[in-house]
Structures are given as structure tokens and as C-alpha cells.
């Protein structure tokens, strides 16, 4: 992420695409290293496919600049770009066989047939389609079509390969295999991959870095681990994984911890980097699999009183749904077998716990909420309406966690 010495392979500078009435891609800036595998992830309609088409040259941008290996390619037409796109539906040529499909990009200029044939065969070897070169496209399975589409793009030695949800048409088993294959091929060739998907498992298992997009904007760019563990915005926290979000107001900050008064009492969160100001409205994020179900929390742990609403047995784990004191839904994922899970009555009251280490704080509702930070500690709730009714600050109905130093 911080290789200033290395020239980025791909550089987006404030790329913006406006259609009539809406902005599909909004001021997107991004740098991608050579040989990096970057996944762009977001819900449908977030602008990720439009962004990919802009990179390919199939769509023009309204404003902004696009650089590939330092060259400004903003105005280079699609057929002269060094990028190749792999389509969701493969877009193979139905009237050509596998060999002719792979060779297509090599036969557009004067060429030596033997050289082309050699390169096509080498690429077919790499993607495991060597035995299928004389097949018609209609005779191939989805996974084989995927391999042909990949070979057709890669045989032309692109500087950047763009992939638009390439695995979404495959069944679950094949998708898993192809994820491994894609990663292997990418590492074998060292080509930069930009991979668009709405599937976080694909993004997390293959990519070096993940870009989370929403409404045309980049929400967060980070490694899969950091995106999963420390989402930076509300959107990322809700879109990625199974996170519990506690809305609240900062009641105290010391050098190690921040205390946040929320609907479940006051919770403490270990500081990371910048700390919010006292009185600021914030959200505490805790992953469902970091919550523990126990009679009493360990020393320094946060305790949340809850009511059991449901439990789901999912093979190797149990998923619990609770309601918090203020009606907020709380999820807990526990790695335990069916038998070891305690028998509990619905609506039973109990407590769940999480360590301050496993929680993180994100800004409340973006920049709009920022001015409220100057308000004194117990200021009335900001007018901005959260999805869950903002609870009045509850003053520690549970024993104050030991770690929360005021």
C-alpha cells in the first residue's frame, strides 16, 4: 500500500462518470501496484461495473484521469488499450472454436501462424484447456468457458486484466476451484488483476486489497483482514461480515480506552489511532464471532444484558440472535457443536461479553455529524435519525467494566 518508490501500474485520479440524473462513479481515486490482485466489492448499482468499463475503455469518464504505467490513457480508445476485460457471461465468439477464440486477439495484426499457434497452446496449457482446442463454444461447460475467456484475454499479454464477476455464473463447488485457479494463474503471470464482485468471500479469499464501493464512492480500501476486522464506515460495517453496531456517545477518553455510552450501558473500546472527542456521537462495531456467551465476562470485558430471540445451528457453529435492552438486534456466532450448546428458553435473559480489543469505533453518520462533536458531553441526541431509534444515554445499568477509566 505504501510503496512510494514503485510506479503504480494503474492510477485513477478523481474518476467521475455522470449519467443523466445520477452519478455512477463519484471522484474515485486509487493506485494499484504491478502484479497486485485488487477486488472491487459493493452491492449492485454501486458503480463498480461502470468503473471497470471505464478502465477497459468501453465507457468514457465525465471527468478525471486514468494512468496505466504512468501513461495517461484517458482518451485512448478501447482497442488500443493494454487492458483486457473478462465478462460475467464470458462473451466468447459462438461461431469460432476454442482455438480460434483464444487466438482472436493475436490474429488481428499481421502474424506468424506458427507463433500464434504456439502461444495459444501454451496459454491453453496454463488454463487447462489444451485438450479442448477444437471444441465449439456450445459444447463447453460454464467452467470451461470461463477458462477460455481467461486464456483469450491473457494470451494477448495485457498489462492489466479486468474481471467482471467472472465466477458468478458457476456453481458453488466450481467457484471455489476457480478461485484457486485464478489466484494461481495471476501469480504465475504476475499480471495486475482488477476483480469486480458483489461476493465478499471471493473478494476476501483472492485479493491482496479490497476496495469497498457504495453509491459511486470508495468507502474503504484495505487488506481483506483489515476490512473485515476494522471496517471504517457504517456502510462497510453493515456490508461486510456479521457485525454488531452499537450507536452511542463518547463519555470518556483516556490514553488506552474510549468509553461509549450506548443503549446497552457503557462499553469500552481500545484506542487505535485517532480518538473521538468526548460527546461525539459514534458507532461501536463488534463482530458477531467476537461476542461470547457466558455467565460473567473476563476482567475488563464489556458486558451486555440481552434477551434470547432465536438460535440457528449451522453445522460447525451456532448463530444466536438476541435483543439488547433498547431493542437493538445483537448477533453472536459461536464455534460449538450442537450438543455442547446449552439448552435455553427463548426470551431468557442473559449476558454476552466482548473484549475492548475486539471492538472498534466508527464515526456516526459521516461528516454531517461532525459539528456535534463540539457539544458538551450530555448534549441531547442529534436530530439526524439513525435506523434504530436513538436511545437516551443509559447511565451504566450494569456494573461498570473495569477497563473503563473515566
Amino acid at each position, binding site marked *: 500500500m505504501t510503496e512510494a518508490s514503485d510506479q503504480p501500474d494503474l492510477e485513477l485520479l478523481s474518476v467521475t462518470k455522470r449519467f443523466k440524473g445520477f452519478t455512477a462513479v463519484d471522484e474515485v481515486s486509487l493506485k494499484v501496484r504491478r502484479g497486485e490482485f485488487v477486488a472491487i466489492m459493493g452491492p449492485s448499482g454501486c458503480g463498480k461495473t461502470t468503473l471497470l468499463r471505464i478502465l477497459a475503455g468501453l465507457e468514457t469518464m465525465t471527468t478525471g484521469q486514468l494512468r496505466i504505467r504512468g501513461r495517461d490513457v484517458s482518451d485512448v480508445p478501447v482497442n488500443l488499450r493494454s487492458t483486457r476485460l473478462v*465478462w460475467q457471461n464470458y462473451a466468447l*465468439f459462438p461461431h469460432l472454436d476454442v482455438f480460434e477464440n483464444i487466438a482472436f486477439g493475436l490474429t488481428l495484426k499481421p502474424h506468424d501462424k506458427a507463433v500464434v499457434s504456439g502461444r495459444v497452446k501454451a496459454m491453453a496449457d496454463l488454463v487447462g484447456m489444451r485438450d479442448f482446442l477444437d471444441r465449439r463454444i456450445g459444447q463447453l461447460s460454464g467452467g470451461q468457458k470461463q477458462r477460455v475467456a481467461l486464456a483469450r484475454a491473457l494470451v494477448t499479454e495485457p498489462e492489466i486484466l479486468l474481471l467482471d464477476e467472472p465466477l458468478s455464473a458457476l456453481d458453488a463447488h466450481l467457484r471455489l476451484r476457480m478461485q484457486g485457479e485464478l489466484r494461481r494463474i495471476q501469480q504465475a503471470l504476475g499480471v495486475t488483476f482488477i476483480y469486480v464482485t458483489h461476493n465478499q468471500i471471493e473478494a476476501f479469499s483472492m485479493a491482496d486489497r479490497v476496495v469497498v464501493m457504495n453509491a459511486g464512492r470508495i468507502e474503504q480500501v484495505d487488506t481483506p483482514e483489515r476490512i473485515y476486522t476494522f471496517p471504517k464506515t457504517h456502510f462497510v460495517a453493515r456490508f461486510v461480515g456479521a457485525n454488531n453496531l452499537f450507536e452511542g456517545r463518547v463519555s470518556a477518553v483516556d490514553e488506552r480506552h474510549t468509553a461509549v455510552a450506548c443503549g446497552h450501558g457503557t462499553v469500552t473500546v481500545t484506542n487505535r489511532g485517532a480518538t473521538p472527542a468526548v460527546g461525539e456521537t459514534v458507532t461501536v462495531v463488534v463482530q458477531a464471532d467476537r461476542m461470547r456467551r457466558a455467565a460473567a465476562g473476563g476482567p475488563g470485558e464489556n458486558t451486555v444484558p440481552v434477551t434470547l430471540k432465536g438460535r440457528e445451528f449451522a453445522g460447525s457453529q451456532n448463530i444466536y440472535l438476541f435483543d439488547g435492552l433498547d431493542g437493538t438486534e445483537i448477533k453472536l456466532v459461536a464455534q460449538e457443536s450442537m450438543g455442547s450448546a446449552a439448552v435455553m428458553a427463548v426470551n431468557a435473559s442473559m449476558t454476552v461479553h466482548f473484549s475492548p480489543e475486539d471492538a472498534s469505533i466508527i464515526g456516526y453518520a459521516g461528516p454531517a455529524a461532525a459539528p456535534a462533536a463540539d457539544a458538551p458531553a450530555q448534549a441531547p441526541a442529534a436530530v439526524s435519525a439513525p435506523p434504530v431509534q436513538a436511545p437516551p444515554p443509559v447511565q451504566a445499568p450494569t456494573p461498570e467494566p473495569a477497563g473503563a477509566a473515566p
Partner: protein
Amino acid sequence: MIAGDRNPWPALGRVFLALSYVFLFLPLVLLVVFSFQANRFPGLPLQGWTLAWYEKMIDQGTLLPALGHSMLVSPAAATVGTIIGFFAAYALNRFDFPGKTVLLGIIALPILIPPLILGVAFLGLLARVHLNGTLFSIFLTHVVLVTAPALSVIQLRLSQMPRQIEEAAWDLGATELQTLMRVVLPFAVPGILGGWLLAFTFSFDEFIIAWFVSGFDQTLPVAIYSILVASMEPTLNAIGAIVFAISALVLIGIEVLLLPLLFRKDTEEA
């Protein structure tokens, strides 16, 4: 549905199908049969086999040259109409431009206007520019007429083409022209052949406009009409049988020779 319980509907369906075929093909069969019969008028009893009507048709002297003219004008008009139709279909399929619906309407107009009015209009126009009364004038008017059906068949085929395969060709480095020649055209071939056949049939059958603009160089329908006006005789059955044979041969030839060539690898077993 239950085994042993015989369902009468499939059998009845087959009977209905057979009746439909009889209804469709009986006139054709009768035409061919009576072209070989000595009867002066079609009817029973049959009076014995003869080739007299074919001889008479050859002796008669206008039908065969007219057939020759038709076999010149119709393929030419079909070919030119198909070429125009392909490019128009490609443009309509690919681009959104102002006046698109208007253009579609104008192209479809020659089919919607009664041929009688169209024929008079063509005659008036061609007479003014001194192009009337020749085979070339029939060719010109038929191109106008057959472009629309050719276009609609080709457009139907092009609309089945995923837009991405064109984009894929550009993305792999192909120019617009290379994409057209190597991706779009091969994909459109079945539509182009179908469009050409339809255009050919439209032109080959067309009587009213050809009757207006042709002079002494008549096409087959015009020549048949001339004979029909003079006398009703079984020579017409003979020419009908020949026209039917030509159409059938063209269609069978395409089925047997051309289609397997085009799709040979599709049917191949792995």
C-alpha cells in the same frame, strides 16, 4: 396419463396435422398432376399422361424468356436488398440516433402501401427519368420492395447477438471494421441467408409493380398473366410445376448443402 388408459388426443392431433398438410399441399399436387394430364380442364376422369403442355410451353415462346428474366431480376434485387438491409439492421441494432423510429417506418412503408398505388407511383417516377419499361426498372423497384423483409429477418438475428461479443472483439484490439467482418457478419449469416431467401421470394412472386414498370421484358408473373388473359390452358400448370420445382430445389439445396457447411462442427460429436 395413467398407463393402459388410452389418451385419444395425440391421435386426433395427428389426424388434424395430416388434414392441415392436405389442405396446404393438395392444390400443389393437383397442379403438378394436371400439368402431365391430357385433360383440357382439370377434373375427373383423368384422360392419360402427356408432356404436350410442356412442349406447348416451350413452343409458346414468352414463358421461358420471362422465367429467364425473373431468374435475373429476383436474385439481383434480393442481393442488393439484403446488403442494404444488413447495414440498416446493423445500424438500427447498434446505435440510438434521432429519427430512428421514423427511419424504421420509412423502410417498412413499401410493404404497407398497396402495391397498386406503389406501382403507379413508380411508373410515374421512372417515366420522368426515362428508366421505365426495362428489366432494370423492375430491378430498381424490387430493391425498394424487398429491402424491408430482408432487413427485418437480419435484424431479428442481430438482436440475438449479445452486445458483449462485439465489445469483446474491440477489447481484444479489433477495429470496428475487423469486428464487423470477423464477428458480426459470421454471426448474422443465418439471418442474411434467410433474409435473402425471403427477398428473393418477394421479388419472384411480385406481379402488380412489375406489371406497371415492365415493358416488353416481362418477368414470369407478368407473362403468366398475359397468357391467362388470352386463354386458360394447362400450359400454365406446366409453368407452375416448373416454378414450384425451382423453389423446392433452391430450398432443399440450401438445407442440404449450405446449412451443414455452416454448422458442421456444431453437430459433430466430441
